[in-house]
């Protein structure tokens, strides 16, 4: 039997782990971007599976001087993986550019939302002191006030407001029921055990309402969307200040311009006129403080509140990312 030519009997040598690592690094930098890096490598019979990880850089600015102070890295962990064929030396499976982008965005949002939830819990009493008139349009305060003054709320009472169909309104009240401030019985809303207790403890209705709101913020933090509707720009501004504090491991002073820039990503420009008022209100309730540096007024979170925030268990997963 004729022998096979030697060229046909030659087999490609498989990639080494180092080759695969280098190939993956090239691929990530050229196809995905400069932020991700490669992590752990696992070898199978036919391939290398390589984690793609992100240490997200955060430059901590000294707002007083406008200069960067230090660079920290937020360990976002694994955001995808590459599979490299060991024999062909080719990437055979990979996340798309936008998959990585979304994964990073989601993890960054997780940090922001965790800070927001923790802040709502630790500053529940302070937030409940905001003047009611400044709260955004939300049925939460209206319904609590109604129950405190009138005892119960019939669905058909609400049908007189055509813009707010009763069922839709009821669904927005589910969070209040979850934290036992109200009971929804068929078509009737009545005070829940917590609201009844608050009524017994406080005589004045405004105090009752504040106490009910504080309870709602403290216990209903996981309904953060609903709480955002109540606290609106005040929560946004507080979160901007305390997220920076968490990143820097201390409350840092922010100029009005810096706050405006961040605030603008959440609210339309028309609201900028109100921003100083919101800050003054946050100062009045003990959530923010100001300091004048070289003639410029700067703002930051309160050190004591920041310490409580850092100790809040909701922030534990975020704390690990900053380790």
């Amino acid at each position, binding site marked *: 039997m004729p022998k096979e030519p030697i060229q046909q009997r030659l087999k490609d040598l498989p990639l080494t782990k180092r080759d695969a690592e280098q190939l993956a690094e090239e691929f990530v930098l050229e196809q995905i*971007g400069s932020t991700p890096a490669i992590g752990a490598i696992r070898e199978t019979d036919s391939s290398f599976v390589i984690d793609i990880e992100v240490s997200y*850089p955060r430059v901590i600015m000294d707002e007083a001087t406008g200069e960067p102070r230090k660079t920290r*890295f937020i360990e976002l962990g694994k955001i995808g993986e590459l599979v490299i064929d060991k024999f062909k030396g080719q990437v055979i499976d990979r996340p798309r550019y936008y998959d990585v982008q979304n994964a990073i965005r989601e993890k960054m949002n997780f940090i922001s939302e965790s800070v927001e939830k923790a802040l709502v819990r630790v500053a529940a009493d302070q937030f409940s002191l905001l003047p009611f008139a400044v709260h955004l349009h939300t049925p939460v305060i209206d319904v609590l006030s109604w129950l405190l003054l009138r005892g119960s709320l019939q669905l058909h009472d609400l049908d007189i407001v055509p813009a707010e169909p009763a069922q839709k309104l009821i669904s927005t009240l589910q969070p209040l029921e979850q934290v036992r401030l109200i009971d929804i019985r068929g078509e009737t809303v009545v005070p829940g055990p917590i609201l009844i207790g608050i009524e017994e403890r406080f005589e004045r209705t405004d105090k009752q309402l504040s106490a009910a709101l504080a309870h709602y913020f403290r216990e209903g933090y996981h309904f953060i969307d609903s709480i955002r509707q109540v606290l609106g720009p005040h929560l946004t501004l507080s979160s901007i200040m305390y997220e920076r504090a968490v990143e820097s491991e201390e409350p840092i002073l922010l100029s009005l311009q810096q706050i405006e820039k961040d605030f603008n990503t959440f609210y339309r420009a028309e609201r900028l006129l109100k921003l100083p008022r919101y800050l003054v209100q946050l100062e009045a309730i003990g959530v923010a403080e100001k300091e004048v540096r070289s003639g410029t007024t700067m703002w930051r979170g309160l050190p004591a509140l920041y310490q409580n925030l850092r100790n809040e268990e909701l922030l534990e997963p975020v704390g690990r990312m900053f380790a």
Partner: protein
Amino acid sequence: MAKRKVLLIGRNNEPAEVLMVPWFPQHDTDNLCFPASLMMVMYYYSDYYENAEINAATPKMSLDQIADMCLCSRENGTRIDNDLAARISEGMRALRATLKLGYSLEEVRKHAEKGLPTILIYDGHYLLTGLRGGAHAGVYIGTAKNGDPILNNPWVSSLVPYPRPKFEDAWDIRRRRALIIEPVVQKKIDGETQ
């Protein structure tokens, strides 16, 4: 030659001669190190480079405009490849960008001697922490007395000397990538190539 004499703070005010590359910080919450580095080089050519035609022909873009030109994202950062160099050459009219791999600090230094700054791509996480991480960009502007490279680092500040062995390790991880940006005499300033 567009150079200036400086004193290196933190090195007992050691004197050094560096290119007059202005320093711009990257946005404090984003991965815009590459566009910030490119902005430094762009403003060097438009404001300090000693050739009036190059000064006039070099556009002055904002950080956002540069980030758009380089197709950067605030999450992923910048894809560093030959397409990026081509986009920069197209957008910068009188300048041409070339991506080099396996470059040496000696070659970079020679460019600087001719008045040409170079953007170096290295592992910024490694340089700061000793742990490997994402890629980072900085602009080489000169060399300290002992041979340490001096960079304008958009994360930190201008005039940062890095210990050469550690910097070389951080640069090795990114296969010693360097983006050379130099004037192209063959290009007319209206953008057409002769």
